[in-house]
């Protein structure tokens, strides 16, 4: 038996752009297409001259194809040894999910090949196939079967699943009466008790509360200790650092790094900090030239640092009172805090094409280490906010906030500047 469980060679997947809008065709379109096709061909030939004898597409036609397709995954090759826990990181839309879908055999690659040794269990969504009208028990069996488990296997694991989900009392109640937490625990429980050699988990755990997430991560590292291979997409860097051995970084469909987890994640974070923020983004009345967040006391943003957020934008028309509205969101898009420029100052009018810069200084940045995003709105003077359609990710670097240890999600998101006191202390670490 080889000790490589997953081997990918030049895996690529091409999607049509706009597929989200017109995923399926109506027969009518096909008929009109077919009816106009001969004419198009004649016109095309006339435009390209006569020579198309070798059957290759003319450059113009090739360019048109390149424009209407995107490579969601582009020539990705890697090997995963048996028993490794591998984290996959990358920005939204980088191609992580496409990779998982191909390895789960849900969709076929356009090019390249992969080999997977062992049964694959994949969890791309919590509770796939759960039916609200069926009871917990019925759903466990149904969901198990959908995930590829045998009935005998489900029966053997049934009690374990139910106690993991903590729904013993409600197992014969239709799941439509379950709380979200119960539903999630049961759904994850089924998948987490599969006995496949390979487990593929997309970012599904982000939906639960902290306690649920903790439980799931624990279960995953438990599974990993049994010599099974896990591929795992997450934005939760501290969880990845905690349970994974190695990490893959995917960016714009390409595999850009693979290696030891801490090293690779650091590399990824550094790269995120470098680019993406400078690209200009358009809204109806503004061009946003840059969005920056940086610490005034150190090269990276750390908890309790003085932090400066600045946004450069250029209005397309004259604006009486341009205004900035900044929100800080978690990676799961939960809003943590917002600042409205207008509450602090009144901006002078700006002319079209004039560069305008606004920002905030935060005296002591309150967020704990982890990943966040800035959401920017601009007021266009007509009392309307325009959302800048770009999520500016940033990281609050890993530091020792309270003392020695690393803080996980259990501590929430906000750092409290605090000191402990007591009637008798032998040491005070805060000093």
């Amino acid at each position, binding site marked *: 038996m080889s000790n490589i469980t997953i081997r990918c060679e030049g895996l690529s997947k091409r999607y049509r752009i706009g597929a989200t809008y017109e*995923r*399926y*065709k*109506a027969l009518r379109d096909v008929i009109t297409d077919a009816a106009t096709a001969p004419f198009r061909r004649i016109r095309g030939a006339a435009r390209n001259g006569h020579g198309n004898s070798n059957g290759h597409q003319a450059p113009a036609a090739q360019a048109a194809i390149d424009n209407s397709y995107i490579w969601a995954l582009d020539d990705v090759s890697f090997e995963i040894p048996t028993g490794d826990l591998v984290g996959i990181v990358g920005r939204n839309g980088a191609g992580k999910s496409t990779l998982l879908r191909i390895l789960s055999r849900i969709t076929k*690659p356009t090019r390249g090949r992969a080999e997977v040794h062992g049964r694959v269990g994949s969890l791309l969504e919590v509770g*796939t196939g759960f039916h609200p*009208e069926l009871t917990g028990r019925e759903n466990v069996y149904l969901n198990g*079967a959908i995930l590829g488990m045998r009935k005998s296997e489900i029966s053997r694991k049934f009690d374990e699943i139910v106690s993991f989900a903590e729904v013993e009392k409600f197992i014969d109640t239709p799941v439509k009466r379950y709380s979200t937490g119960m539903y999630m625990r049961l759904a994850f429980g089924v998948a987490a008790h599969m006995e496949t050699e390979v487990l593929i988990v997309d970012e599904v755990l982000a939906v639960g509360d902290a306690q649920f997430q903790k439980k799931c991560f624990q279960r995953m590292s438990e599974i990993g200790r049994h010599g099974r291979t896990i591929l795992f997409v997450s934005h939760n860097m501290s969880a990845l650092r905690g349970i994974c051995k190695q990490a893959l970084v995917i960016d714009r469909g390409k595999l850009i790094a693979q290696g030891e987890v801490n090293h690779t994640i650091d590399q990824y974070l550094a790269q995120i900090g470098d680019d993406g923020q400078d690209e200009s983004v358009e809204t109806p009345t503004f061009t946003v030239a840059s969005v920056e967040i940086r610490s005034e006391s150190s090269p990276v943003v750390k908890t309790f640092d003085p932090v400066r957020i600045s946004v450069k934008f250029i209005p397309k028309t004259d604006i009486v009172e341009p205004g900035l509205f900044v929100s800080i969101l978690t990676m799961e898009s939960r809003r943590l805090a917002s600042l409205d420029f207008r509450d602090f100052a009144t901006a002078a009018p700006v002319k079209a094409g004039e560069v305008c810069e606004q920002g905030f200084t935060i005296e002591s940045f309150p967020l704990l280490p982890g990943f966040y995003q800035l959401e920017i709105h601009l007021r266009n003077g007509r009392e309307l906010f325009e959302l800048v359609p770009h999520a500016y990710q940033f990281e609050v670097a890993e530091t020792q906030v309270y003392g020695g240890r690393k803080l996980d999600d259990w501590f929430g998101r906000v750092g409290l500047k605090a000191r402990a006191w007591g009637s008798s202390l032998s040491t005070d670490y805060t000093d």
Partner: protein
Amino acid sequence: MKAIADVVHTIRRTQLAVPCFRIEPSTRWPSLGLRELWEYRELLYFLTLRDIKVRYKQTVLGAIWVIIQPLFMMLVFSLFFGKLAHVPSDGVPYPVFSFCALLPWQLFAQSLTESSNSLVGNQNLITKVYFPRLVVPISAVLGGLVDFAISFVMLLALMIFYGIVPGWQILAVPALVLLAVMVALAVGLWLSALNVQYRDVRYTINFLVQFWLFATPVAYPSSIVPERWRVLYGLNPMVGVVDGFRWALLGKPESPGLPLLTSVIVVLLLLAGGLYYFRRLEQQFADIV
């Protein structure tokens, strides 16, 4: 103890041959994948069970709906075709004559409709989990069998009421049911795969089923079709199924012979083509559904 059990289990697992999956771009000539389908038979069972359990939840009448549909059709047919239009019924009381044909017809029509819409209806599964996609239309077809069994009891009651005793031919019923299911599956495979790509299919199905009903000897005996059209008529595989049912239960027509044989051949051809077409399109289902 648990630790030991775990170890034993792990050892047993490593001794088993670990399957190896190759993931490659779409192929023009896919295999039918029937062996894999067999490995997923339990999923087939659970999906069918789900459909049956869920179908009449939150309805007041529940499973009574199963009987109401063919019963009302039988009443309407008896009134308009039997009483008013005097359609011949091969000497059998018209209600029994039509009900006997309505059963396989309903089984077929329901299975066809369900299976044609099955892939689109289960798109959340198709885009999130891998399993042989054939499971979906097949389970949709199997769901109709329970309804059939219930209405079959109704038919037996009706036959007792009219004092009709079936002969040894009744033993052919299971085979005929299988044939009806296969017709539905054969057409359902084509339509369900087409439906993924072209949603027009959904609107075509009702129309198709209605048209098909009149091209099938449900309300009338096949004997009223002129001799020279018989061969063409027989290409509709449901002709053989319905005639076969009447033969098996009512003894009329005398022998289902030729139409039944044509049915079997047509079904096998349709089914083979449907399977192949389905497998070929299956590779893109998750991308276009």
